[in-house]
C-alpha cells in the first residue's frame, strides 16, 4: 500500500466523487490520493440528492406537457 500523504480535495473533486457514488462506480486509487472530510461529502451529497430529485421532476414536467 502506498503511503503518500493525500492532499485535500477541491470542491469539483468532491462533486465528482458524490456523482460517481450515485452511479456506484469509483476507483480505489482515486479515493486514496484525496482527503475529504465527512462533512464535505454529506453537504455535497444532500445537495446532489436534491438536484437528482429536481432533475427527475423536470423530466416529468417535460413528459406530461
Amino acid at each position, binding site marked *: 500500500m502506498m503511503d503518500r500523504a493525500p492532499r485535500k480535495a477541491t470542491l469539483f473533486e468532491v462533486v465528482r466523487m458524490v456523482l460517481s457514488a450515485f*452511479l456506484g462506480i469509483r476507483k480505489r486509487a482515486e479515493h486514496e490520493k484525496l482527503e475529504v472530510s465527512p462533512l464535505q461529502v454529506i453537504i455535497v451529497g444532500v445537495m446532489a440528492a436534491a438536484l437528482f*430529485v429536481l432533475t427527475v*421532476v423536470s423530466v416529468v414536467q417535460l413528459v*406530461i406537457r
Partner: protein
Amino acid sequence: MEAAHAHHGHDDHAHGHPTGIMRWVKSTNHKDIGTMYLWFSFTMFLVGGVMALIIRSELFQPGLQIVQPDFFNSMTTYHGLIMVFGAIMPAFVGFANWLIPMQIGAPDMAFPRMNNLSFWLLPPAALLLVAAQFMPGGGAGVGWTMYAPLSTQAGPAMDLTIFAVHILGISSIMGSINIITTILNMRAPGMTLMKMPLFCWTWLITAYLLVAVMPVLAGAVTMTLTDRHFGTHFFNAAGGGDPVLYQHIFWFFGHPEVYIIAIPAFGVVSQVIPAFSRKPLFGYASMVYATASIAILSFMVWAHHMYTAGMPVEAQLYFMYATTLIAVPTGVKVFNWVATMWKGSLTFETPMLFAIGFLFLFTLGGFTGLVLSITPVDVQLHDTYYVVAHFHYVMVAGALFSAFAGIYFWLPKWTGRMYNETLGKWHFWLSLVFFNVTFFVQHFLGLAGMPRRIPDYAVQFTEFNMISSIGAWGFGLSQLLFLYIVIKCIRSGEKAPEKPWEGADSLEWTHLPTPAPWHSFETPPVIK
C-alpha cells in the same frame, strides 16, 4: 499482532463472569448478546414459519378448509411482522454484534449495557405479537403494513401490535447508536474506514438508515394509536384526516426498511464470495459508494408501493423514474460480485453455495422489482401474488440465504467446531429447490390475477397453489435440518482448524484464535 497500547489492567475487579442463566440475562459481552440475537431470530423464524405454513395449507385447495378468514388475515399480518422485525432484522444485528468488534479490532461494542437492553427488549415485543392472537376478536388482520382505516377499527390486538412495534423500534435505534459509535470510535490504530471489511461498512450505513426511519414508523403507529383511543383524526376522512397519509408515512419508513434488511445481507455476501474465490472483493470502493448511494436513493422512491392509492400522474411518473434509476447502483453491486468470482479459484462449500444462491435469486427478485416499478404494469399487478413472489425473492432468497451463508461461514469461528459439510450442502439444495417450488409459481398466479391476503381463490388457480403449498412445507421442514446441523456442530462437531477458509482475510480470521476468545482485542492490533 503488535500491542499499540500498554495493557492497563482492564479495570478488572476480579469479577468472574456470571454463569448459568444469569450469564445471558446480565450479559454485556458482544458475543453472548450476538448469540442471543441469533437464537432469538431463529425462534421467531420458526414461529413466523408456522404461520406461513398455516397460510399455505389453507391455500392448498380453493374454498375454506382449515381456518376462518379472520384468522387467515391475522396469520398474514403476524407472519410478515414477525419475519421482518423478529427474524431477519435481529439475525443481522446478531451478526453485527459478533463481528463488528472483531473486524475493526475493538474489545467489545461501545455501549455494552445498552447492548444488553437492546436485546432484552425483543422478547417482550415478540410476546406481545404472539399474545395478540389471544385477544378478544383474535389477532389484528390488518396486514403487516397496518393500513388505516383497518388498523383504526381493529380490535384490542392492534394495541398490542402497536406497542410491540414501538418496543422493536426502540431496540433497533439503540442497536444502531451502538453500532455507529463502535465503528466510528473504536477502530484499531491504522484501521481507516476504507480498510474496514465491507460488512462493517454495510452496517454503518444501515444503522444510519435505522436511526432515520424507525422514528417515522413510530410516529405512524402512534398516530394510529391516538386515532383509536384519543379522538384524533389523522387518518379518518370523516374527521378531516386522510387514510392515504398513513400510506405515505408508512412507506417513507417501509422503503428504506427494505434496504435495512438487504444492505447487511450484501455485507455478508461481500465477505463470503471473496473468501471462496480466493480474490479480494472486486471494486471495494465502488461497493462502499454504491451502498451509500442506495441508502440515500432509498428515501426518494417510497410511493412506488402505492401507485394504486391515488396520486397525480406527475407523482406516478416521478416515482417510476426514480425507482428505475435505483436499480443502477444495485446492478453495480451484482456485477462486482460476479467480477470477484471471475477467474478466481472457486470452491463451493456451503457458505459459498448460499452466497451464489443469493446472487442468482436476489437478482431475479430485483428484476421483478423493476417490472413492478413501471406504473402501468403495477396497476395490473398490485396486490396480486406477483408482488408476494417478488418480495419473497428479495427477503428469503436475498436476506435469509445470505444469513445462512454467514452462519455457515462464521460457525467455526463462533463455536470452534465445524458443521457437517454434506448435511450443509443438503440444506442448501433442499432450500434452493423448495424455495423456487414455493415462490416461482406465484409469479404465474399473480400474472393470472390471483389477489394476495385472501383465504379462498377461483378454481383455475388450484394447480399452482398446490405446487406452492407443497414447496412451502418442503422449505419449512428443510429448516429443521438446519437446526439439527447447528446443534450437532455445537455439541459434537469436529474441531475447527484455526483458519478453515484459506481465502478469508478479515481480522477475526487473521488475528484471533478459533474459537474466538471471550474478549476479542484487549490490546488493539495495529493495522498496516
